[in-house]
């Protein structure tokens, strides 16, 4: 049944490309996908002994144990749901492309198919391959239908992400090769079982370090980990709105998902060895990129940088190496995905209708666009971690997990450990986020309205429900985070228990 998650969007993509009412086919396929995801996630309400459900396997090359193994745990199910929600909204909010409508919507659906494939794969090879499948249409969308200096942006993002993928590939190869002979497999379920048996040292401790580092850099480039982040603002500013929504909301999360799925469970010692390096880098994401964000004067660039900045919080959760922090990180994947999609959606709508995202040129739009203002407000308060939204629940867990990662040292004044300092930096980052987000809100929507914009109208009714859907998702999880936390925990647990077993 899980194969359907990939096949439905591919069918939608094919229909679009063949020119069968491209927009409608894409929307229909994405709605079907959403329904299926909801059905799959509902299945998790009943407890089951096994970690992965809906397992299915399809042999590709039996000789090297290469098979298309798919299955879902709560973490995967959450990502699948995220992908479906963001896809539906991206398609519905998409402006009409200037040409080649079929190829445009087809490419969007292919991104979605690739993401779904990556999130359901329990096989290293397909996990990687599906991600590549999703990247290619992203480049096409930017290069062909993009804004501004689109060719250059497309090249930049292509080269950058290709490099990331390449490093990632090296890391995966290294991981595979370092497995003790006889245990070499791409099958993650088998690897987890072996790892459990080996008490976290399935891969020799001496090898774990460099493999983890390679994976961290590879995945890190894909996630826009400082200092490999400059592709993101350029890319998101140039990309067509739905492509930016899908990439920032979902595809970028693949790197973090990969770290949670592969690097942390299989290389716990490596993760520990490079923990402090990661803290420096994520502090760069939060503090340095946060400051860069403040300096931005265009909304598209600002949102791009802010999404880079918020990756730092997810990394902080991962770096905590405990269930609380990593659950928070996982929840933040979901929360950030929805909120950034909504923010980019608003940005796209403004760009489409006003022709500018330069903040000095805007102002007072709340008067003519009350609904757009409302949705932007909801998304921005979510993204700056206001309680009531999923982002807060996630961030609070990240903070607690990370701050409690090391015992407190009561001797001496402010004698904090490196990760505790990182938490403090991250908390200051919350102030920084509020500075740039509220400034943008103020400059775009409040104050006196420009004469040039007096004739503007509110968000089109057909574009309201996708925003409402995103906001509802954020609020439901924000009020009742357990809804997702209970799903996520088992997906994160083995990671942490392997770690604990080590100590």
């Amino acid at each position, binding site marked *: 049944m899980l194969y359907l998650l990939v096949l439905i969007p591919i069918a939608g993509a094919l229909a679009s490309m063949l020119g069968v009412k491209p927009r409608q086919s894409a929307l229909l396929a994405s709605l079907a996908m959403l329904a299926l995801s909801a059905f799959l996630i509902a299945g998790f309400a009943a407890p089951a002994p096994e970690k992965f459900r809906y397992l299915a396997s399809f042999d590709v090359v039996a000789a*090297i144990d290469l098979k298309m193994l798919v299955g879902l745990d709560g973490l995967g199910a959450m990502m699948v749901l995220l992908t479906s929600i963001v896809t539906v909204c991206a398609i519905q909010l998409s402006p009409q492309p200037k040409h080649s409508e079929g190829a445009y919507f087809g490419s969007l659906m292919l991104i979605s198919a690739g993401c779904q494939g990556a999130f359901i794969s329990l096989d290293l090879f397909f996990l990687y391959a599906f991600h590549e499948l999703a990247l290619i249409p992203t480049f096409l969308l930017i*290069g062909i239908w993009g804004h501004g200096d689109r060719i250059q942006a497309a090249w930049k993002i292509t080269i950058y992400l290709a490099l990331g993928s390449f490093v990632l590939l090296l890391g995966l190869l290294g991981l595979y090769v370092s497995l003790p002979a006889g245990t070499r497999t791409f099958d993650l379920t088998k690897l987890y079982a072996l790892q459990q048996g080996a008490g976290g040292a399935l891969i020799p401790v001496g090898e774990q370090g460099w493999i983890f580092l390679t994976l961290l850099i590879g995945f890190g480039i894909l996630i826009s980990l400082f200092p490999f982040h400059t592709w993101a603002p350029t890319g998101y500013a140039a990309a067509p709105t739905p492509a930016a929504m899908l990439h920032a909301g979902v595809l970028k999360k693949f790197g973090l998902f990969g770290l949670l799925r592969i690097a942390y469970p299989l290389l716990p010692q490596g993760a520990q060895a490079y923990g402090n390096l990661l803290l420096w880098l994520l502090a760069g994401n939060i503090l340095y990129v946060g400051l860069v964000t403040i300096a931005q004067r265009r909304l598209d660039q600002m949102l791009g940088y802010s999404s880079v900045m918020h990756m730092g919080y997810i990394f902080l959760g991962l770096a905590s190496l405990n269930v609380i922090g990593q659950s928070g990180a996982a929840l933040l994947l979901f929360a950030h995905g929805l909120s950034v999609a909504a923010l980019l959606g608003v940005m796209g709508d403004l760009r489409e209708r006003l022709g500018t995202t330069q903040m000095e040129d805007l102002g*007072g739009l709340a008067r003519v666009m009350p609904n757009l203002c409302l949705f932007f407000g909801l998304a921005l308060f979510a993204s700056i971690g*206001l309680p009531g939204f999923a982002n*807060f629940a996630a961030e609070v867990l990240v903070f607690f997990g990370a*701050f409690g990662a090391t015992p407190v040292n009561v001797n001496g*004044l402010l004698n904090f450990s490196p990760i505790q300092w990182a938490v403090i930096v991250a908390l200051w980052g919350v*102030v920084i986020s509020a500075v740039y987000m509220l400034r943008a809100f103020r400059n775009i929507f409040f104050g006196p309205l420009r004469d040039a914009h007096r004739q503007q109208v509110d968000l089109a009714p057909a574009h309201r429900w996708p925003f409402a859907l995103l906001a509802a998702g954020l609020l439901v999880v924000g009020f009742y985070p*357990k809804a997702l936390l209970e799903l996520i925990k088992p997906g994160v647990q083995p990671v942490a228990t392997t770690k604990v077993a080590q100590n």
Partner: protein
Amino acid sequence: MAAWLILLAPLVSAVLIWLLLKSSRALSSYVSVAAVGLSFVCSCVVFAGGDFTVSFNWIDFGPRLTVPIGLTIDALSKTMLLVVTGVGLLVHVYSLGYMHEDRSSSRYFAGLSLFMFSMLGIVLANNFVMMFIFWELVGVSSYLLIGHWYEKASAADASKKAFLVNRIGDFGFMIGILMIWALLGTVTFSDLEPAVAKLVKDPVGNAAILSFLTVAVLFVFMGPVGKSAQMPLHVWLPDAMEGPTPVSALIHAATMVAAGVYLLVRVNFLLVAAPMAQNVIAWVGMITSLMAALMATQQNDIKRILAYSTLSQLGYMIGAVGFGAAQAAMFHLFTHAFFKASLFLGAGSVIHGMHHEQDIWRMGGLKNKMVPTFITFGIASLALMGLPYVTSGFYSKDAILLAAANKSWIFLGLGLATALLTAFYMTRLFVVTFLNKPMSDAAKHAHESPLVMTAPLMILSVPAVIFGFGGVAKWFNLDVPHGPDPLHVPMLAAAVFVWGTVMGWFVYRNRQSDPIRIGLFARKFYFDELYDVLVKLTQETLARLSAFVDKYLIDGLLVKGATTLAFSAGFVLRFFQSGNVQAYAIFFGLGVILLMLLAFR
């Protein structure tokens, strides 16, 4: 059940208005008033009943971290519930009149309901995280309400400033919470209290832990410094007067700004374990109270005068907490909530009657034009100034001064100086606005506000008087212990009241303009200017520097350099020159897959 209803009724109202009733202004306002009415009734029911706690786990990671959403009903929260819902109800009713002509009044009432929900959450919270959640939510409802007239640039800026300054306070608050949790393993107040008590039993053995706790408490204190607008984070509150006046009464005078005091009283057991922190808190409070009173003497906007007076009175309360006199702080919070709300609503009535004039030097002679407003404003002013032995403000201020006297003569001196200035600037305000001759046409033709606005004023002047009497206070769980009083503090307080009032009377009676000009006070000690420079020097400079580094060093030199190198090496040159992205992308995908297959073969 009743306890949950208190909390949830306003939330339901806010959601209902936002989703369904936006276009129906009248219905929205009634729903909002009904919700707060229900909360008030339930609060009374709860007040009459016993103490209890109900809670469920919001986040549950076993013994490591459990965050409940729980309601504490005890003496402290019961009293506060009555203050919040009581004043809240009156302000809602008053708003029916005040916001009658505002075309966005639905949004306003939704905001008020959201605020009530958030504020009641603070009152009822049984743990730090829940407190923080609602703490931030009152922040956002305050943001929405200050910016209600968002088309005014000053209102939009003020709301942003209020939120950001509060966020700085919350930054420290969260660090404090994390430190306390890391040290003691829980965030729930009822679990923290015995743990702290155990530490205090052995102050020498636990010296290191207690000093860690002291630092944690000081970080927590940053929250109240922001929310209760204490030095040096006080700058947002005067600007917050850009919001509609009922909002100023409810949020920026009676309830939300007092949340900081309430929090400190709630975690008083932590403060007791950290005497050093208590000292800092006492100093911050008393310095704020004096400086704010000095600034109040030179303001000309009726609402701003009251705003600075709020700062000053909050300083008293924070100071009292620092003296270890939590009960006195609560007592003053309680009386202040009623008479200050009354003053703001009275000011609103004046502004309404004067067609949105707020400069007191364009008022005058309102005693004949607006009789009910004049009388109720007078009563509330006297309560604030502390008319001896008659008004509630006298008794509660006296309790704080007494606690100050028992701590140190410096604190008593600061407190008395503030009291003197309070009597002075309130006399100034009252004389210029009501008693002097009219100074503008608007003042000559001022009219009284409708009954829906004056009735709350009249109701509020009752507690302004009687709530100070010992018996009434005790009935509201406000049992203020009286320490030894060798200095006869009430006498001193009465003396400075007379002194300040007489001085104000003679300086300002029959004046057309302010005879006193002190730039330092009028410009608020140049705090805003100082912060502007500070922000420009640090944040803006750093931001611009980072952006430069990002654009020209990281992206420019490293990334572009690397790609240029790759291109010149001819690695991808062929695809690039063909300019066909499509072709490249396909090649790229195929290549990667091929590479994978080869590698894994």
